[in-house]
């Protein structure tokens, strides 16, 4: 991981699709995979999400940042059907999915992971993955009783699941209960499981939270592969700015439910509003981070 954010910021140029797109909240993009309009959700008197317009670019990695309570997870919940908005509409891949239940959204190709990982503890790692495949004939009650009806498909799904396990280095845990995995392995499992759905858009809620630095690098590699090798779109929530600046093509900053800034990482790092809202009043987030590290190190020595 680079300790100098300037190096990280310059590591990836603004991708062709986003050249010439203005760095302002709610800006239109050439080929958005997700378009959100007038989305509002309040809990009691608190407006958690209030997004006037937001477009997520296709085939790229979008980082979603914002201070605690900015509405990032609520926005995820709304878009993936896990929560119902007070008002607002959005289209995913050209279709309005605003009133859809979560399972339909997932089947349509927008798949999320959870901030608190949801490994299916008393099922094996392989079963966790195989569950992810969509359109399984054997998942219908009557066909389930007749194994020839689904056996062939099941074998194909197993092959796909085993390939993913190898890719995510979980193949040695194949037949273990998922509940025996470590925190970082669960993050890997959840990402791999989401891929079994063959999503167009992957929504990762804090994929690196609580993961040790060595595994962070490998997780980062997997996220980049989603874009570079498989051409999927990714939106992810993350608090570690090094990570956000290293892999994002585009960064959206939320504060108090509103989009306050958008742009490539380099522009966001220098944006005064983002710095005020999120990175702290020191106006120098790398200094801020150094300070934080120093404190943490002192804490661990003590």
């Amino acid at each position, binding site marked *: 991981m680079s300790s100098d954010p300037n190096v990280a910021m310059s590591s990836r140029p603004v991708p062709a699709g986003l050249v010439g797109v203005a760095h302002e909240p709610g800006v239109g993009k050439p080929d958005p995979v997700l378009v959100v309009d007038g989305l509002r959700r309040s809990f009691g008197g608190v407006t958690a999400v209030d997004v006037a317009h937001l477009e997520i670019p296709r085939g790229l990695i979008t980082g979603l940042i914002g201070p605690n309570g900015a509405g990032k997870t609520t926005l995820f919940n709304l878009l993936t059907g896990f929560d119902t908005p007070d008002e607002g509409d959005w289209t995913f891949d050209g279709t309005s999915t605003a009133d859809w239940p979560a399972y339909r959204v997932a089947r349509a190709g927008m798949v999320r992971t959870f901030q608190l990982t949801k490994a*299916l503890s008393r099922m094996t790692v392989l079963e966790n993955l195989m569950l992810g495949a969509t359109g*399984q004939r054997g998942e219908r009650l009557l066909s389930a009783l007749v194994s020839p009806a689904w056996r062939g498909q099941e074998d194909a799904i197993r092959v796909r699941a085993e390939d993913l396990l190898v890719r995510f280095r979980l193949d040695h845990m194949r037949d273990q209960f998922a509940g025996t995995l470590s925190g970082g392995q669960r993050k890997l499992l959840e990402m791999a499981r989401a891929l079994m759905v063959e999503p167009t858009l992957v929504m990762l809620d804090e994929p690196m939270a609580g993961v040790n630095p060595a595994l962070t690098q490998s997780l980062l590699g997997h996220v980049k592969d989603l874009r570079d090798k498989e051409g999927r779109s990714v939106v992810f929530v993350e608090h570690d700015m090094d990570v956000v600046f290293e892999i994002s093509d585009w960064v959206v900053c939320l504060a108090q439910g509103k989009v306050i800034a958008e742009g490539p990482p380099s522009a966001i790092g220098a944006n005064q509003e983002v710095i005020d809202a999120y990175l702290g009043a020191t106006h120098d987030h790398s200094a801020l981070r150094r300070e934080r590290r120093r404190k943490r190190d002192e804490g661990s020595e003590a």
Partner: protein
Amino acid sequence: MIETLFFDALRSAVGPTAATYALLAIGLNIHFGYTGLLNFGQVGFMLVGAYGLAITVSVFGGSVWLGVVVGILAAVALSLVLGLPTLRLRADYLAITTIAAGEILRFLVRNTSSDPFTGSVFGLRQFAGDFYAISPFSGGSDYLGPLRFSANRMWVTSVGWGLVLVLSLGVWALMRSPWGRVLRSIREDEDAARSLGKNVFLYKMQSLVLGGVIGAIGGIVFILALQNVTPDMFLPQVTFFAFAIMILGGTGTVLGPVLGSILFWFLLTGLQSGVRTLVDSGAIPGVAGGQAVGAVSLIAVGLMLMLLMIFRPQGILGDREELRLDVK
């Protein structure tokens, strides 16, 4: 004397009551063991199955086969009524609703105003004629050697355990299929299942209907064996016996409910028999009468279940490793 005790216990363990409770527990196991649905009113499904059959035959003069169909359809209807409002909510709502529904149904059939249909507290009888008419067994009480089953008891026992076998096979086939995998994923974390495109509500409903129908079949076997039905056969404790049986055998295992039921009835009847012998001989001071026999043997069964929970919490067939992970 020990021999008498043993045969008393064995007679109960292989009899129609044990088969009935095995069926109830198989249904509960689909609900709780595989899907994580907390159904505290399995006795309600048993009741609608039993009364569906009895009313169809005794009151409306239908055949016993039509009665069985009516009993099963009544269980489907009850599942829908209970499931539609509660399955979208947290697990505890279904638990509260089902325990209440079981009691509501019992009071409903017990009520004097239901008398023309249910016979209120006196219940119904003479509905099993068609069933025993096709029995291949005939003659006196000379079946199963020392157990001395009558021809009728032999017939209903065979049908009961036959159903247990067929339905256990069905559960085994379903639970190794992708359908069963979805059910287990809902038990583990229903939001995760949703995030992977599974229609959780639909699967919970299917599970509730399936387990409820198996409970109703249990009720049908139960009253065919007794050849009468009264409301107070369906006390809430029936559900808790079925839970005890499922946990004893091993929750979430195919044969757990079957083994659990056999063992439970073997122990309960054996103890009852033993306690009665002791009470009659005056060996237990201060305890006398039939009521006391029942109470003392239930205390003993309770103690045994406590010991089981302490030393083998996963049940006889359960996997300890799996239980250890059951912490969310």
